[in-house]
């Protein structure tokens, strides 16, 4: 989806502000949010691609307002509400001091059986592309989840590495199963991505799932 999360190449966010000797967490609420989201994610049975898509669907204000753990918190609330764990107004009521007991848990999905690997899957067919092949990304802009950033659509590059087939996020985030696809690290010149004033000595290597690519026959 064309969302605020797709930040690569955007202007206007200013300088990188690197804090010296930064702690792992800055406040107790960040710690608790981190732990709760990992644990709740396991209990709710969602996969990582769905989890990323919950964050992408935050509106831009919520996405940006409280940093990384703010995004985790907002998406956790949405996810808990979506799963029927939190009832409408339940959290707001508790924050406002209501003493009402917590609503009981709905039936949750059974834990998934462990997979042989988190995301790598064997495919019988070989990869379509090999190292050195010239490729072009498609104009892929689904309304749902994808891992092809906007800055790299319809751009020409060269396959730098071929990785094993992996679960395909574009399908997996939407309940369509794993649909494994080969992954390639594709090398793009920054000038191809960002125009003729970009640094001629800079390159971006972007991991691309096979459906994002087509052969660049014009090369």
């Amino acid at each position, binding site marked *: 989806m064309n969302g605020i999360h797709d*930040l*690569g*190449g955007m*202007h206007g*966010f*200013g300088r*990188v*502000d*690197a*804090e*010296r*000797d*930064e702690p*792992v967490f800055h*406040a*107790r609420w960040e710690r*608790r949010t*981190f*732990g*709760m989201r*990992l644990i*709740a994610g396991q209990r709710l049975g969602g996969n990582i691609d769905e989890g990323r898509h919950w964050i992408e669907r935050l509106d831009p204000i919520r996405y940006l*307002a409280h*940093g*990384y753990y*703010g995004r985790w*918190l907002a998406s956790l*609330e949405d996810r*808990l509400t979506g799963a029927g764990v939190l009832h409408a107004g339940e959290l707001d009521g*508790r*924050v406002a001091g209501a003493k009402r*007991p*917590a609503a*009981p*848990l709905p039936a949750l999905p059974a834990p998934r059986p462990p997979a042989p*690997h*988190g*995301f*790598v899957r064997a495919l019988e067919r070989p990869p379509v592309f090999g190292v050195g092949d010239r490729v072009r990304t498609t104009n892929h802009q689904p309304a749902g989840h994808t*891992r*092809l*950033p906007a*800055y790299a659509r319809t751009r020409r590059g060269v396959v730098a590495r071929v*990785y094993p087939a*992996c*679960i395909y996020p574009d399908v997996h985030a939407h309940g369509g199963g794993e649909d494994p696809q080969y*992954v390639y*690290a594709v090398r793009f010149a*920054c000038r191809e991505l*960002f125009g003729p004033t*970009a*640094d001629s*000595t*800079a*390159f*971006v*290597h*972007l*991991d*691309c799932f096979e459906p994002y690519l087509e052969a660049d026959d014009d090369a």
Partner: protein
Amino acid sequence: MSDARDDAAIALRVEALEALLTEKGLLDPAQVDAVVRRYEEEVGPLNGARVVARAWVDPDYRRRLLEDGTAAIAELGFGGPQGEYMVVVENTPEVHNVVVCTLCSCYPWPVLGLPPTWYKSPPYRSRVVREPRAVLREMGLELAPGLEVRVWDSSSEVRYLVLPERPPGSEGLSEEALRALVTRDAMIGVARAKSPGDAGDG
């Protein structure tokens, strides 16, 4: 973008959420404690520093690390979530590597711990693909003009770790002493490894 009043409000909200989820039986605060403790105390860039220092002193290990990062890192006992398929990219006098995740904040947790705030924030994520040299310069790393800059955007589940160049003057150091020269920032690619005798933490 948040001020103290926001922080107090969000702290209250998270406290209420944890209380509700505990009462519902979805989680136990002790589980949250255990997850937090793991990432606050056990997993961090010292793990990655062990990998890098080993590669600097052991050419066979370095070769294995560049060929199959996941297996070589597992030899030292590191692996797990956000590090199940590791690729190590080597800095040389000709090529400088730097890692980002423009779409979210993917990062190799088992070897580097949880990412710093700047790595997860819009300025770094938006700019380092477009103008890597300018971003690195702002962060204190000036690269030679002819050097190739290679930005790895972590858009799949592959996780990248930069193998920094071994600093000059470190020839006589033990593997343990070398570990102290390997910073988190050097393994993301926004800094060089420290030189022996460097005072700061780079």
